[in-house]
């Protein structure tokens, strides 16, 4: 019986690193080339990288949410070409350009910390975990613009409950993926990565807080935070963290990216509040994308009925 010793293998026997990492893409490309050659199929798929196979996939939405606004949603084009996603550049047009080849599959989302049942989910698990709802929310950016987006997902509470937070859990910390090799412009942003965010546990469990996997009937485009993001409609947009890899229940208030960067400008709560201005600009008005003149900003972005009670007795000027 002959046994290969380790020494018998040379580097030539090892799959090159780049091929190994791109094996799925390479296999798929080979398959598509084959299919195209045989059947003369639509060649447009050739230019679509692996990620596009996921982004843009139709989602089976079964629930129309009572939380939806009747306001007219912005166009898909607006919502996919005017993005703040600093990992992919600080210009609003950058994410659409530089997140094109962002790999969102395979993807693992970890739920851990002060929970009885820590868990790991693939993005396929996440999409199937609960019936998908369409929720048309107003979205207000701290910079003074806003839009209306038909998001798809389900309440974050559904996911958190599965892990059974312990008595000690008071806050939830979130973390985005940070992969410098896929995010070459991140170094210019001026803020630290990975991007982290946080909510109080009761905020996280509020029915409005959406674990979002899609919009406009499809899975999330890369530049909008694929494959899974948060949408917290009564808070400024930067609280709605994108491309989440980790959700951690914790005892104390977790650090958040923007308040760590400029604590006097961005607080942990960051509720939309027309009466508390950003130190450098007013928050009393906002420009809805597609409109010329500004409109008045609503308290809690118009979601007071659902969330005002969370802050009863709190000085929102102090806890901005």
């Amino acid at each position: 019986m002959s046994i290969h010793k380790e020494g018998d293998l040379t580097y030539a026997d090892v799959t090159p690193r780049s091929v190994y990492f791109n094996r799925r893409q390479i296999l798929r490309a080979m398959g598509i080339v084959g299919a195209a050659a045989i059947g003369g199929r639509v060649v447009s798929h050739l230019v679509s990288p692996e990620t596009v196979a996921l982004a843009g996939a139709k989602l089976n939405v079964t629930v129309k949410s009572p939380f939806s606004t009747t306001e007219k949603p912005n166009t898909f084009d607006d919502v996919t070409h005017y993005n703040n996603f600093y990992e992919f550049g600080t210009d609003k047009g950058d994410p659409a350009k530089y997140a094109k080849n962002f790999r969102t599959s395979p993807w693992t989302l970890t739920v851990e910390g002060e929970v009885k049942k820590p868990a790991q989910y693939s993005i396929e698990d996440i999409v199937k975990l609960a019936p998908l709802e369409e929720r048309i929310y107003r979205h207000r950016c701290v910079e003074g613009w806003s839009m209306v987006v038909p998001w798809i997902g389900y309440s974050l509470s559904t996911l958190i409950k599965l892990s059974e937070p312990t008595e000690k859990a008071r806050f939830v910390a979130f973390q985005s993926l940070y992969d410098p090799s896929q995010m070459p412009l991140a170094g210019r942003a001026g803020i630290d990565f990975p991007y982290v965010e946080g909510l109080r546990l009761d905020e996280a469990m509020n029915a409005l807080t959406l674990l979002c996997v899609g919009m406009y009937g499809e899975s999330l485009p890369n530049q909008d935070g694929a494959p899974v993001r948060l949408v917290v409609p009564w808070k400024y947009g930067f609280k709605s963290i994108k491309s989440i890899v980790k959700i951690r229940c914790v005892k104390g208030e977790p650090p958040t990216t923007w308040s760590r960067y400029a604590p006097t400008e961005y607080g942990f709560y960051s509720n939309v509040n027309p009466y508390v201005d950003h130190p450098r600009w007013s928050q009393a008005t906002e420009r809805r994308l597609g409109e010329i003149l500004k409109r008045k900003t609503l308290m809690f972005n118009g979601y007071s009925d659902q969330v005002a009670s969370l802050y009863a007795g709190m000085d929102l000027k102090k806890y901005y």
Partner: protein
Amino acid sequence: MRDFFRKLLVSKWSKVAVFLFCLLPLGYLGLRAYQGEVTANPVEYIQHFTGDWTLRLLLITLSVTPLRKLLSLPNLIRFRRMLGLFAFSYACLHFLTYIGPDQSFSLSGMWKDVVKRPFVTVGFLGFVLLIPLALTSTKGWIRRLGGKRWQALHRLIYVTALCGVVHYYWLVKSDHRLPLLYGAILAALLLYRLVDSLLKPRPAVSVSPAS
């Protein structure tokens, strides 16, 4: 080569060329708007675009004097007034996007904003200080004020450029590369003047009006 360049500088066509150069950004903006390529937030896009070009033209205007001396091309002075007036024109467009879409042409609303927010205050100050410079940019006003006084008045452009850089720096959230770059260029241009005035105490320079 140099002689050719000097001749080119005094030809009347060179002024036409600089005039057209200054119109290029506006033409580009018009083209983008026509093609619908001004993002989902056109007001902001136009506001930032005109603000950028105000600052760039201010810096170009401020480069004229150092370049004249460093390159021994005194005739560059012919373009300074035009460059300055174009900087003012872009500043006017920039201001229009603010007073119009942002403030719905409400003077009281604008005033509240100017008083309350340092970022708006410096921008507004920089703009206001440009107005007397634009008004007194003619030969007649140089004569009326006298060269020395005219020159002293027009040093206000240093303040305006500084206001512009600070205004930009305070606008940006965290990516400060561009405002810092403009700031560095402005610092170099002002430092040149400081060193120049310290090195050679000269008799009063007579201002050569742009022809």
